[in-house]
């Protein structure tokens, strides 16, 4: 599906490959600096602006200014070690960086506690004030959005592969490793290869129990875990527009599961209303140009989609729920940076209300941030989970990666609203992980086997 960007449209402009005109952005205008206007995709425009250029072309290597970066208790220790071993005494801008101890939190053992202490010490020395741990804990990929630290038109580079979640507000957001983050802390910049953009247009109305999570699982199921390798995935269409903002985030969140550099959704009025009150700094939304060149464009009719289940051991190993036979489960995990938003908690609680978790099933519900946790308490969601016989925990991403809380033993089977089901991802290499949306996860906890709320 990869290919060169479409070339040679009318007037020498690149033309969107196979893209109906009605889906071209109405809002963007091509820029005319030093030559004919060059139509760019949303991703290209953000990158060009941050490279200080009037245009960039796919596959070019560029250096860009980074608006925000972050790290956590897995990658952070390496980042800080790299800086210390090169005797870096000052970071580029402490305001543009935050740290979240989110994996082994609250510290699960001595080593985890030592890590947090070391990271706190480093941040104090460097003047980095935003440190999320303890009473303000949360998953950074969600915190960046919730705390207004990633904004439309900006570049976010996080030290976590799911930093791409930030693309849900119309930012260029991507994940990198510890050394790349260290370099950003030194220079405030990073290098990138401009990705070609693939456009995914979701038309029609979402059927009951079908969510943004199912759209991205279906997309990865169709195109594979390297179906968008090194590309930008741009998600659009009336089904996306119809979704509340937080229910869109599962799409860019899992862009990396298709190998993409970033996932992005053009900001609309809902986005701006959502982001406005949270924003920590002024921002200017960016929109794609009409007639921009895409590497490919795919349209999906969502009205016939079902909830999707990704079977072990790849996110692309998807089946529609109706094709899933008896799959009994030992654990259900509802949370993570994919589906730990308040909308996900509410979806689970609606199904769990007045019901009991099946005998022998361990249900773990974990909001992604302290803000979501607090809202769950206000709305009685925590109590609903407890009444159903589940566990309701403070924010951590531990279970998603088999590091902390709800680690799977040999032969155990987990249904999870998270984003990866690789071998050993949630614990034992002999365990199995199935990825679903929160409705299906909650119904599964009650049924004791993978199933739909319609069966309750």
């Amino acid at each position, binding site marked *: 599906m990869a290919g060169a960007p479409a070339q040679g449209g009318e007037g020498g402009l690149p033309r969107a490959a196979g893209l109906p005109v009605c889906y071209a952005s109405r809002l963007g205008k091509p820029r005319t600096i030093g030559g004919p206007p060059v139509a760019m995709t949303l991703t290209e425009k953000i990158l060009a602006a941050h490279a200080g250029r009037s245009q960039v072309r796919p596959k070019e290597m560029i250096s860009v200014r980074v608006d925000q970066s972050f790290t956590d208790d897995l990658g952070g220790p390496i980042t800080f*070690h790299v800086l210390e071993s090169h005797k870096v005494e000052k970071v580029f801008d402490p305001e543009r960086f935050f740290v979240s101890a989110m994996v082994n939190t609250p510290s699960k*053992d001595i080593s985890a506690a030592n890590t947090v202490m070391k990271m706190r010490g480093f941040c104090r020395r460097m003047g980095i004030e935003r440190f999320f741990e303890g009473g303000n804990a949360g998953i950074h990929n969600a915190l960046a959005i919730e705390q207004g630290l990633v904004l439309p038109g900006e570049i976010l580079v996080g030290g976590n*592969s799911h930093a791409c979640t930030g693309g849900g507000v119309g930012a260029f957001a991507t994940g*990198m490793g510890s*050394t790349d983050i260290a370099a950003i802390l030194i220079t405030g910049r990073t290098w990138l290869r401009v990705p070609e953009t693939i456009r995914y247009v979701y038309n029609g109305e979402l059927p009951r129990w079908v969510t943004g999570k199912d759209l991205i699982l279906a997309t990865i199921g169709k195109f594979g875990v390297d179906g968008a390798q090194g590309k930008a995935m741009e998600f659009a269409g009336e089904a996306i527009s119809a979704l509340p903002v937080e229910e869109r985030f599962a799409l860019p969140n899992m862009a990396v599961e298709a190998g993409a550099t970033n996932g992005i959704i053009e900001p609309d009025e809902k986005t701006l209303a959502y982001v406005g009150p949270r924003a920590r700094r002024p921002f200017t939304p960016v929109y794609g140009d009409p007639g921009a060149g895409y590497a490919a464009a795919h349209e999906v009719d969502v009205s016939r989609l079902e909830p999707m289940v990704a079977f072990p051991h790849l996110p692309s190993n998807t089946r529609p729920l109706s094709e899933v036979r008896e799959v009994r489960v030992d654990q259900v995990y509802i949370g993570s940076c994919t589906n730990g938003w308040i909308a996900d908690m509410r979806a689970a609680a609606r199904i769990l209300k007045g019901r009991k978790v099946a005998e022998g099933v361990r249900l773990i519900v974990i909001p992604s941030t302290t803000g979501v946790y607090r809202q769950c308490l206000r709305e009685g969601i925590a109590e609903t989970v407890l009444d159903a016989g589940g566990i309701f925990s403070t924010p951590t991403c531990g279970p998603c990666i*088999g590091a902390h809380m709800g680690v799977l033993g040999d032969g155990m089977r987990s249904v999870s609203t998270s984003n990866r089901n690789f071998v050993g991802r949630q614990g034992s*290499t002999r365990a199995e992980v199935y990825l679903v949306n929160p409705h299906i996860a909650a119904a599964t906890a009650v049924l004791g086997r993978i199933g739909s709320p319609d069966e309750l």
Partner: protein
Amino acid sequence: MAGVLEGSAWTLGDHVDTDVIIPARHLLTFDPEKLAPHCFEGVDPTLASQIRPGDIVVAGHNFGCGSSREHAPIAIQALGVSCVIARSFGQIFYRNAFNLGLPLLEADLPPGAVRAGDRLSVDLATGRIENRTTGAAFDAAPIPDFMRELIAAGGLIPFVLGRRA
């Protein structure tokens, strides 16, 4: 970058993710010596004890996909693996490896071109891969100029510190 690497091949399949390269339960440390014994644990727990310094890993598509954990290339490097050849790489892993000085080569090898235990010689400068066991030879995609610059500078951090000076 100069010079020819020689070693025995270890062959792996497609989509070898960083969770199977180094599971999260081992990430409480980034000490290479502690990570090395667990490298590739999710593929085959005995692999780390069999790989010898200088050996070469040959894999399929999308090697290193998934988590951004830099512990993955650190662990591979700590085993003494001299380079990884794959049809394609997960993008974050690709950056991480070069940032640390672990060379990667993209090569679309025909099926069966390299079998486990074959002796390989790899010229990083030209991308020439020779299978000394079978006598066959292949060409990998040249390592991009920017990556060569990084390696020449001694890694990403010396590179950016050098440019600031």
